[in-house]
């Protein structure tokens, strides 16, 4: 059960006294961080490392974390983003699996994919389209729609200007719409 803001504040205060309470924070956000890292790296083991490193650092630094009426999730994503940056720096590039995208796109263009997506409740194919978007657009769309961060928060997490983030989001959505309307 996700924590509400009030519970989260309480849990963080308790965690500063008793590290075991961090389990609640972990339980609430580990999947989201993993999904974010996995979506951006397309590598499960890297996503696992990033998630573990994010929460380990957060646990180490929890005493430095000051509550500002914003979910700790925001802080966790900032840490995860930095971990991803370090990963990208080491890898020297973003990881994209174009073969997978091509394979997933297949030859079904022209049908009402969107309705089928919803009917099938899978969204796999849409995901292939998202992966074809520019990196920032894909990341912003996921942060916005998956995690419901506002644009200001996304700008801070990604280190981009607010206007850039908004543009990446709307252009990405428009692009997806175009592709899906073919």
């Amino acid at each position, binding site marked *: 059960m996700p924590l509400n803001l009030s519970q989260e504040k309480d849990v963080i205060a308790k965690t500063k006294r008793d590290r*075991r*309470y961090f389990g609640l924070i972990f339980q609430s956000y580990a999947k989201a961080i993993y999904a974010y890292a996995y979506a951006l790296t397309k590598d*499960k083991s890297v996503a696992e490392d990033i998630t573990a490193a994010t929460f380990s650092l957060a646990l180490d630094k929890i005493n430095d974390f000051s509550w500002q009426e914003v979910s700790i999730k925001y802080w966790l994503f900032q840490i995860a983003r930095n971990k991803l940056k370090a990963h990208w720096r080491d890898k020297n590039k973003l990881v994209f699996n174009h073969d997978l995208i091509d394979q997933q796109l297949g030859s079904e263009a022209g049908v009402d994919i*969107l309705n089928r997506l919803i009917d099938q409740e899978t969204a796999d194919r849409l995901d292939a389209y998202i992966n074809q978007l520019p990196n920032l657009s894909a990341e912003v769309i996921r942060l916005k729609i*998956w995690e419901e961060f506002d644009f200001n928060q996304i700008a801070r997490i990604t280190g981009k200007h607010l206007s850039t983030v908004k543009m990446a989001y709307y252009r990405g959505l428009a692009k997806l719409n175009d592709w899906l309307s073919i």
Partner: protein
Amino acid sequence: MDKNHKIKLVKAIKQSKSRYEPGQDTMAEIKRQVFVSTPPTRYGWRTFTANFSQPAYGVAGLVVAALVLAVATSGWYRPAKLAGYIQQTFIFSFNKFLPLHMSIAYAAGQIQAEINRLQDKSNLVHTVTRLIMYKPNGQVDQQITYDLWQDNASARFKNIVEYADGPVVQVNDGFNRWDLDIKDKTLNVEHYVNVPAGGQPKAGDQVKLLSQFQQILDHQTDLKINQGKYNGRPVLILSFSDDRAWRDKDKPQTLYYEYYFDADFKFIGQKTWRLIGGQKTLTEEMVIDKYEIIKRDQTDLDKIFKFDRSQTEDLKVTEVYRDAVSLEVMTPTPPPTGPQSDWQTYINDRYQIKFKYPDNYAISQNSNCTGVTNNPDACLLTLILDPNISQFVPKAHFYLVQGIDKVLISGQIFIIKFDTKQKSWIVTSGTQPQKVLPVWGRTLLGQEIIMAENGGSQIYNNYYIIPDYEENEVAVFAFPKNFKVYCTQAMYPNHLELSRARCKQFIKQIVDQYDLGDDGDDILWLPDEYIQSVYAQADKIIKNFQNPLSGMSQSAPTYEPIIGANEKIISGQLTNDCKLKVVTNQQTFLLPTGYGQDDLNLKCNPANYRLVQATVSNSGKYLAFIDIDGGIDASIKVYSIEHGDTVTLNNFGTSGIFGVLFLPNDALMVGSGFKGVYDEQFVTAFDINALFSNYPVNIDKTAMLFTDLSSHQKVVRLPDIGRDYTGLEYDQTKNQLNLFTESSPSADTVQAYELEELLP
């Protein structure tokens, strides 16, 4: 974009998240990485033992560990080089709060005020305290005995503790206890207990630990007082836990404390546990061996306190380090191979390093580590050690580098670095075969020191490399070995002529002193003897280097995350299909039971089953219930909402369980016995909080049993009354447990126990 289309699109994107979420195995692995650390095998020596688990340094680790093992088993370590381990472990466990640097004038004032105050007292309490440190295997590691003089009428006291390397004076000002640690020149703050107003504390009372420093309170949890026994004596036990990172870069470690007080609330002992290898292990004990009230006129306070204000030369706060050294409350005995007592100490709190250096040295921070690494990001700290002999004498340097493999000491010909394949420090060049550098020595804390010389056309240094394989940091001292003075170089660009003249004068002095017969030259290789004399103390500086992060590393804790900590159990009830229905303040769920395991179609009538005795602890953290195992054996199980697990406390076989109840402190009382066998009736007390405090280390996860109940359970055989006992009740007014034989407890109570008699 059409609005409906956009909604569909957003919805579809949201749904796509699920394909990226981790499975249970992945979550379990991530959780393990976050919450479970590799446990050390021995506290205080984690640096070495940890190396075993690091393949990159496995060979070096084995060599070092073999040395440590040889040292540890020989007994040689006590007074000699490894004394640092013992000493540091001790200081950090005893003076466990953050050091507070302050004016010695203030300390002197405190001491004097205490003397003045005690002058009016006719009686003093004199105690002799023994502090015992245990090895993880339970053997005594070290004992220190100290005297303490205390005002009989208050908590104020003054004592002198004899540490291995010198005394520490402690002053209690009635609010905080100030520890004056002469060696480290610091005053430490400790707490003392504020007993609740209105008399003696009793079981269940909450007590406060007072302190000016909020950070102390921030880390202390589970403060409570219970009754119990200590060395066979009934005592009040103040218990609490304290977890904190000792230094910024450490993970916090939970320590568990118990303070024992007799019936007069007189402090008689204390124990400390810490998690070692995931096990709560007794590491320290304080025993009051002697307690006597002495007449004031039998002693002389000035002699007891031995504070000679006249020896305090300079009381300026800004020079607190120098002041501290001159405060000879008692004469500290410097370590025989260590630095002089009047040496200064360089302490860097951020990187937790410390070393002593001669009084004539000046230390300043430098800007880069180019001498020992070509990676600017790896440079944590660099210092210039100036012996203040002459501006023309080369300076020594200290470097702290992040990353064993980032160290690269490049000379004109040779390169010194760590070879990750050989797991050794090597010196290499383009033309000669590489050579493995041996361990040259060890620091006070036992860290290995590798020494090698390297340089170029103007300077050759002796490099003393002190790697910390665990923290992946390397400390390097560079002391000049050879140096060529060039008076043609501009030492002061704005005063070139002046500088050159001074330089030539310096050269002349050296030439004359060493009879070099090379008068008048602008260039001179300083003689080795001269450099050696300038840096004659280099060995002592290096060997005194202390990096607490390795030398006294605390064992890395293993956290079992709490899941569901906000939840409290409200009730538990057997359902018709033989499940235990648990209602919490957040949800309702079913737990499996042993009923009906062999017959899935069995219907349970709660009224006919013993499980009806499911009972919730006062804290709402636990639900205890009687279950059946194997279709016949009665067992007591406890469900923990924090951990989401049901654990079997005890299997009572075919004997009956006639009562289950929680006491206010979550201790569980269970009455059991064979029906009709009147001399085999028992009451068993389980300390549930204590049992779950080590979850899941003390649990057999296959059988879901506590692996060792011995220290947290107590069994009392009930007297034969010629009838079966039928129930238990807790009498809050009298704080006792009543046992009765019929359905009416008040009318048929046949036995009553003080809780103290029953609790483990």
